């Protein structure tokens, strides 16, 4: 059946498959966007778009960062410093405990990642992080070569 063969190869299922694949991809992306931001689950209570909420302070010689990460344990939290970019990422799981049924679910499960470009290079050795009562406290020290330096002028 030459006609059918040609129809299959040149038009037919190939195109439909591609269309379906595109729809799948679109749906996947939308699903991901909703999953990552918490979607409408958090509406009216707290937005999850910029999760976790972060406060940043400057003391002159150091930066202090505080982030509210309730329900995130140390092992699910990842802090990375790359030159002058600080990234906080991790995940929070809010599964229904086994044997329970759910009446209300406002606490979103999520993977999160937030990055900051800092106004100086950071020495990871000079950073200190502490997690307590669901609040991450991070002290960020300036790298030695980012500190102001005195230049001596020689005569001659």
């Amino acid at each position, binding site marked *: 059946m030459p006609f059918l063969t040609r129809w299959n190869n040149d038009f037919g299922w190939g195109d439909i498959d591609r269309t379906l694949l595109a729809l799948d991809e679109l749906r996947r992306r939308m699903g991901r966007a909703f999953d990552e931001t918490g979607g409408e689950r958090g509406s009216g*209570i707290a937005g999850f778009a910029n999760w976790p*909420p972060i*406060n940043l302070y400057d003391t002159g010689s150091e930066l*202090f960062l505080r982030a509210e990460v*309730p329900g995130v344990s140390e092992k699910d939290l990842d802090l990375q410093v790359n030159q002058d970019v600080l990234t906080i990422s991790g995940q929070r799981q809010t599964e229904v405990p086994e044997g329970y049924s759910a009446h209300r*679910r406002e*606490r979103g499960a999520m993977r999160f990642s937030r990055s900051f470009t800092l106004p100086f290079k950071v020495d990871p050795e000079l950073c200190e992080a502490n997690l307590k009562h*669901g*609040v991450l406290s991070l002290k960020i020290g300036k790298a030695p070569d980012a500190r102001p330096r005195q230049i001596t002028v020689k005569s001659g």
Partner: protein
Amino acid sequence: MSQEIVRQDEKKPESYRDRVPVLSPPVDIFENEQEILLLADVPGVKEDGLSITLEKNELTLHAKREMEEEPGSVLARDFHEGDYYRSFMVPQGIDGEKVEAELKDGVLHVHLPKSDGLRPRKIQVKAG
């Protein structure tokens, strides 16, 4: 039961209106045969800042958040000072004496055990 626990009072305590801002923490509510379990995100709250009351069938959560002193000037601020407050209607038949709460990683867990009358009972059928 599910209707009752879903109903929620949005009122705020009188004494807080002009003072510290009040935040409504997101909650999860679960149930099994033994208890109702409520989880609330309350980062920054310590055990001694918590007050949980069950009066008639109104459960009230009030959590005082300790904001540490701000070191230096503010570059960015997503969260502000504020206490957590929220109340719920819980079904009758919760054993108020046995309500237990714990804090873990900034999440409040409240266990509301059902009294015997509320638990499902298996009825034995005897052969006559």
